[in-house]
């Protein structure tokens, strides 16, 4: 005997669905009552996986449920980010985002599940990671001013390697080019910054724009000198490097990491998420991790984070237009 498709059954079904909907708020009050999945749109290795795992490790203690870290890499982080954006907005799927995956990729790729900051829920900004410019230890450029002077004398002659075309180090350099009117050529490499650094150490380029974690070891060994940091303030890892924000051109595009969730999470769950992440970021444990790994902290929640990402959308768009016009 099958289920007859009559009015009685249909009404029952509708009532059932309505009841499920009504159960929503009560569920939210109990949130979280099961494991939460945290999607990292990058492969393990590199800077994104450790910061996610650290955040989850502490958040777990705050929320008293397990956080399962899932790496979903690929397609410039858009595959994993898409998985978060498209997940059910029940607070059980959140994930890592970066200003590159959230604000830059929508400019480059069509058909993504998010176009701008309205496509997802901003939760919290975890940290900034400044890009830095390193030159070989025996380079004639002792300071960033030397470098700029040479760039002005010979436009387009100076080359710096970056870890890939339109990665945040590349965008940082290009934004600086746009603001300053200088023309430093970026040469993209692959392989997570390692090969880009190798090109600088081997003298095939004049310098390399990358991150502290990759360069620190070479600096300690006296093979590399960091002359600039693409940030507003001094970078504690390399206090001698000149912040680009202190040049007349005020360009400071960093890499920033955020936590996002799908759009439409009930407010009570959101409030709990904000409160818990706030506690994580204010705790000594996370701060110590950030310092040890070269992150600078600048916590922003919800709408403040959204505003920052909108700024990045605008900056990236300007850089793209600039690169388009320079062609």
């Amino acid at each position, binding site marked *: 005997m099958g289920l007859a498709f009559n009015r009685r059954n249909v009404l029952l079904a509708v009532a059932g669905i309505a009841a499920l909907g009504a159960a929503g708020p009560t569920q939210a009050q109990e949130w979280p009552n099961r494991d939460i999945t945290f999607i990292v749109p990058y492969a393990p290795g590199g800077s994104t996986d450790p910061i996610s*795992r650290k955040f989850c490790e502490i958040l777990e203690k705050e929320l008293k449920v397990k956080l399962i870290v899932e790496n979903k890499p*690929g397609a410039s982080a858009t*595959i994993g980010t898409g998985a978060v954006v498209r997940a059910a907005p029940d607070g059980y799927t959140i994930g890592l985002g970066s200003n590159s995956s959230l604000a830059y990729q929508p400019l480059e790729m069509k058909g993504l599940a998010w176009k701008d900051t309205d496509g997802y829920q901003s939760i919290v900004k975890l940290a900034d990671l400044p890009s830095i410019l390193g030159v070989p230890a025996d380079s004639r450029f002792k300071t960033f001013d030397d470098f700029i002077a040479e760039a002005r004398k010979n436009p387009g002659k100076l080359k710096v390697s970056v870890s890939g*075309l339109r990665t945040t180090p590349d965008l940082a350099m290009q934004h600086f080019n746009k603001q300053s009117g200088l023309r430093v050529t970026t*040469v993209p490499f692959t392989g997570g910054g390692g090969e880009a650094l190798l090109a600088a150490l081997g003298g095939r380029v004049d310098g390399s724009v990358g991150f502290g974690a990759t360069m*620190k070891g070479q600096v300690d060994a006296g093979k590399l000198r960091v002359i600039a940091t693409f940030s507003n303030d001094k970078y504690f890892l390399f206090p001698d490097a000149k912040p680009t924000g202190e040049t007349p051109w005020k360009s400071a595009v960093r890499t920033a990491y955020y936590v996002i969730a799908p759009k439409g999470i009930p407010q009570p769950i959101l409030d709990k998420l904000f409160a818990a992440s706030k506690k994580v970021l204010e705790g000594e444990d996370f701060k110590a991790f950030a310092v040890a*790994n070269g992150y600078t902290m600048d916590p922003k929640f919800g709408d403040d984070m959204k505003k920052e990402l909108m700024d990045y959308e605008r900056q990236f768009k300007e850089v793209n237009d600039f690169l388009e016009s320079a062609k």
Partner: protein
Amino acid sequence: MTAFEGLFYGLGVAMTPANLLAAFAGAFAGTAIGVLPGLGPVAGVALILPLTFSLDPTAGLIMMAGIFYGSMYGGSTTAILLNIPGESASVVTAIDGYKLARRGRAGATLTIVAVGSFVGGTLAVIGVMLFSAALAKVAILFGPADFFALTFGGLMVMARISGGTLASSLLPMAVGLALGTIGQEAVTGETRYTFGILHLVEGVSLVPIVVGLYGLAELMLLIEDKAHAAARPQSVKMRELLPTRTEWKRAVPSWLRGTGLGFLFGLVPGPAATLSSFASYRLEKAVSKHADEIGSGAIEGVAGPEAANNSAATASLVPLLALGIPFTPIAALMISAMLVQGVQPGPLLITEKPEIFWGLIASVYIGNVMLLALNIPMIGVWVSLLRIPLYLFLPILLVLSVIGAYSVRNSIFDVWVLLGAGLLGYAFNKLRFQLAPLVVGLILGPNIEKHFRETLFLSQGDLWAFVDTPIAITVWILVAGILAVGYFARRRTSVATAMAQESSL
């Protein structure tokens, strides 16, 4: 600290119970990962990465390295027994290994491989220990133009890797190169030939292609071969597990050549273990005394590549430890493990954290001994698998292949790729096209393109950049030499055959 003081100091570190356990766990897991088709060392190391955060940094790195070189031992098992390479580094092992197994020499071949892996791994770690600091500079010398010469030259030299006519190799190679262009271009991230399919953005992954081309196609051929399917599998005698004197003798020079070649590959960026196994196979074909047998089941065709991939896996510790720059995905994971633990990778590691540097190197010695002890007794077990009747065996194989293809990226799409590759492999077999050039094309293609584009970005479009460095020029001259020698040698043989035919008329 001299190298030998360092080694003794390292042995002290590696011999602590925790570190011994870490080495054993890594080696054991590595063997298992190697034996299972699909799940490769990168996925294996990524899986245990979070686990190592709770370990002492030295123990964590010892375990990760163990998985990498351990998988080089296990990877050849299924390649030899079933014609299904467990890793991409074991593809060439399948060519001669499987033919040897069909001749009843499976046990002997597995022994040669295990000992060859031990030789490769151990000699390479001696090299790492003695010359790390000096060799680290080698990597800095190589620029994109040099890598382009190496990879593109390699493609030309390896065109006829598995014998056959030139045409029967070139078409599959072109197919491999074409497959390699699918997905995101390495430097700019531009997507190509994806037809809006999200799975293709990351490109076609190697494992389903390899398992399909070799394994699935072999299954189909076995089923088709009804006489064979009905035949009772022969039982294997103990005597056949051991190589004969001649087999040992023939293996030794190949081991040594493979080890040397693998070591060089390990020093520079690229998929070292896989490439070195192909290069070693090619080298054996060129210089071995039994070169004419290679391709139809020669011990050299197995001994060389297997020593080479182990040696390459171990040598890739050089850039990791002495330079602090990762060249392989696994090295990147190990760097990540160091950073999370607050250990700064870089040239100063050896002086600032000698317990990690020397402990890791010493553990590789110990790990290789463990692996030998672990693998030799297993050979009897593996070989007895061949006694399972085919009607039970084939379904199990099919299931294993599908799981293997699925597990790489947890993607059902890859299972379809596997089936497609199986059909292609079957067709190529029937039409007597060579399969190995396809795999060479698929592996080298993206690398060639990447270095090509990097060179042009660096030179701002100046094509002379490709022959602008001493290394690149040397490589091109060598490639031209090898191709010329091969061409004239073949012409001489064909002239000789023609004359012999004429005189017999």
